[in-house]
């Protein structure tokens, strides 16, 4: 019964294939207990993505609840200061809850409702995905448990409180690196245990099939909007799309609708932490080797024995040793270029946008902002850059305050 999903994909995309692979990346590497749940989810998802009623419901909530479309804002003063390419910001920071994560959680919550699951669980690093999951749980009436590493609970205290206010339980994870990777392990263990009544709301384009595909479809609203917005304001496609990459959901969301527009260059910015040679970074696509973690085959930071390395980044949302399989595929076929920005430079990007545009960004996109500040001056003034401003920076104020004395 599970082989019936071989119909063309809704947006005419050919990948992933029916086994959940993007080239050699992806798949379903999970305990047998979850396999049937994944098959069910896949059937339900494919049905939903062809169902006009579901899609219009999804659009309704994106618009009326999350506040979409988010603006594509021309950053005039930043452009002037850098003296090169024209810079546009896709303002995901203005979406409800303050980041792009809400796009995905709305979609998954609607699916979970269709599948008659009573409970949502999620992992979270920076807390943005946790907040977005707790938010939709409150709105649709699910019970909700969020797994979060104790290290992240410390550095993202504001978001922990928000999740609790929204009625979710925040379950501290004290194993391994006490960050996103370990929160994900615990969420999967919970799902294995409670699979019959629980939907696992994975927050990025990672995990077993159909998650990387599903999260991409829900996040693609970013790129679809950006495309029609730039065509309206500039009457042409952009030259560069730039976004930060942890697991990679905001970047895939922006990139994917431009996949066939070969002249549009994609740049993914990973976290170089304390430097690529410090062993304290999260630059999975640059420094990793192919491996299997959390259900899919992709690039992975691992040691010579195949044990997963502990990642490091100043931003909890990028602090992850894995990456979505579709990014690994983009790297392999050279559709996107990936580079990394250090903690210190991300703080520079953070200040730059605050001071020149009056927008305090999250630390995650601050990595991408720094890269734009290096790239834009080298480009001609008629070039166009779209940067995905994936979230706002309120959650990071405590961390930034430790580093920047004013």
């Amino acid at each position, binding site marked *: *019964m*599970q082989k019936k999903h071989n119909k063309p994909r809704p947006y005419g995309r050919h990948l992933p294939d029916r*086994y959940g692979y993007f080239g050699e990346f992806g*798949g*379903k*590497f*999970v*305990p*047998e*207990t*979850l*396999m*049937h*749940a994944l098959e069910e989810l896949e059937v339900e998802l494919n049905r939903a993505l062809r169902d006009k009623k579901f899609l219009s419901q999804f659009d309704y909530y994106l618009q009326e609840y999350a506040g979409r479309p988010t603006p594509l804002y021309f950053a005039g003063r930043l452009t002037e200061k850098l003296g090169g390419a024209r810079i546009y910001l896709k303002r995901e920071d203005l979406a409800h809850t303050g980041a792009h994560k809400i796009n995905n959680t709305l979609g998954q919550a609607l699916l979970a409702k269709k599948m008659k699951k009573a409970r949502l669980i999620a992992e979270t690093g920076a807390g943005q995905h946790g907040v977005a999951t707790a938010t939709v749980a409150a709105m649709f009436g699910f019970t909700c448990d969020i797994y979060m590493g104790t290290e992240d609970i410390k550095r993202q205290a504001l978001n922990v409180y928000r999740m609790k206010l929204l009625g979710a339980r925040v379950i501290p994870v004290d*194993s*391994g690196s006490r960050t996103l*990777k*370990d929160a994900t*392990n615990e969420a*999967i*263990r919970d799902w*294995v*245990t*409670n*699979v*019959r009544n629980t939907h696992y709301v994975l927050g990025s384009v990672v995990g077993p099939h159909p998650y990387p595909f599903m999260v991409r479809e829900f996040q693609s609203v970013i790129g679809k909007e950006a495309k029609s917005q730039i065509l309206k304001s500039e009457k042409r496609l952009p030259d560069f799309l730039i976004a930060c990459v942890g697991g990679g959901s905001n970047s895939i969301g922006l990139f994917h609708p431009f996949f066939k527009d070969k002249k549009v260059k994609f740049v993914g910015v990973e976290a170089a932490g304390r430097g690529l040679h410090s062993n304290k970074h999260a630059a999975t696509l640059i420094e990793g*080797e192919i*491996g*299997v*973690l*959390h*259900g899919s085959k992709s690039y*992975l930071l*691992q040691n010579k*024995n*195949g*044990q*997963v390395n502990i990642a490091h980044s100043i931003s909890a949302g990028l602090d992850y040793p894995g990456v979505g399989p579709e990014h690994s595929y983009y790297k392999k076929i050279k559709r996107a270029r990936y580079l990394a920005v250090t903690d210190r430079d991300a703080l520079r990007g953070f200040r730059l946008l605050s001071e020149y545009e009056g927008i305090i960004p999250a630390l995650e996109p601050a990595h991408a902002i720094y890269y734009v500040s290096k790239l834009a001056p080298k480009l001609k003034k008629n070039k166009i850059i779209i940067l995905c401003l994936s979230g706002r920076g309120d959650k990071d104020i405590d961390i930034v305050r430790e580093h920047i004395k004013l």
Partner: protein
Amino acid sequence: MNRIDRLFKKLKKERKKAFIVYITAGYPTLRATERLILELEKSGVDLVELGIPFSDPLADGPTIQKASEAAISKGANIKSILRIVRSARKHVKLPLVFMTYYNLVSHYGLKKFVGESMKAGADGIIVPDLPPEEAKELIDISKKENFATIFLAAPTSTTHRLKNISVKSKGFIYYVSLTGVTGARDRLPQDIVGNVRRLKKITKKPVCVGFGISRPGQARRIAHLADGVIVGSAVIKIIEKNIGKKDLYKKVSRFVRGLAKAIHGE
């Protein structure tokens, strides 16, 4: 026919059930693991499942997580574990089966891993995060070497999936007693009887049941139902309590004998 098939053939003749014990290799030390394998055989264990510890064991509960972390920090890796298997093999006859996560073996190289494992005297492998549909390469390589690929079946597996699991499994099928991770439980789920019977109708291969079993009473009930009983976390807990004590092996042996008696019906 390899050691696993011979074991189940012999047990069938004797109308006995298999007693399988899991231990984490390298916990508390590699040397202790080697000695534990010998003690387990002497104490009535029919097959040893040797865990190769992984940094992110997402099918395991806290007991095995902790043991894995400790073993890794003491230098347990595939190479060092193969060494103790080679050395233990000189003294024991029981089948030895690895249990580990896919990243470790795929990073090591599947062909190299299977070849070296056979040479060292191991008989098969269980990979909890590798469902049969992702296992083609491992199955092809293992077939050539007569290395057993043991797949897991779960309470949530559909009949269609159980059939495929049965076809792909060599040696035996590992039935996961509950929806959840490894670790001792006070109670086993009600649906276990029906589920094992359903699986036994589908397959002629031996079905062994694991996850959650920790006490002789539970083991006895499972032994009536299935072809084998697997105990892991409960044994690791005994090891954990007796680390550094002289009578570690005696304590483990006493606990294991109690279970063996229940399973073998002596």
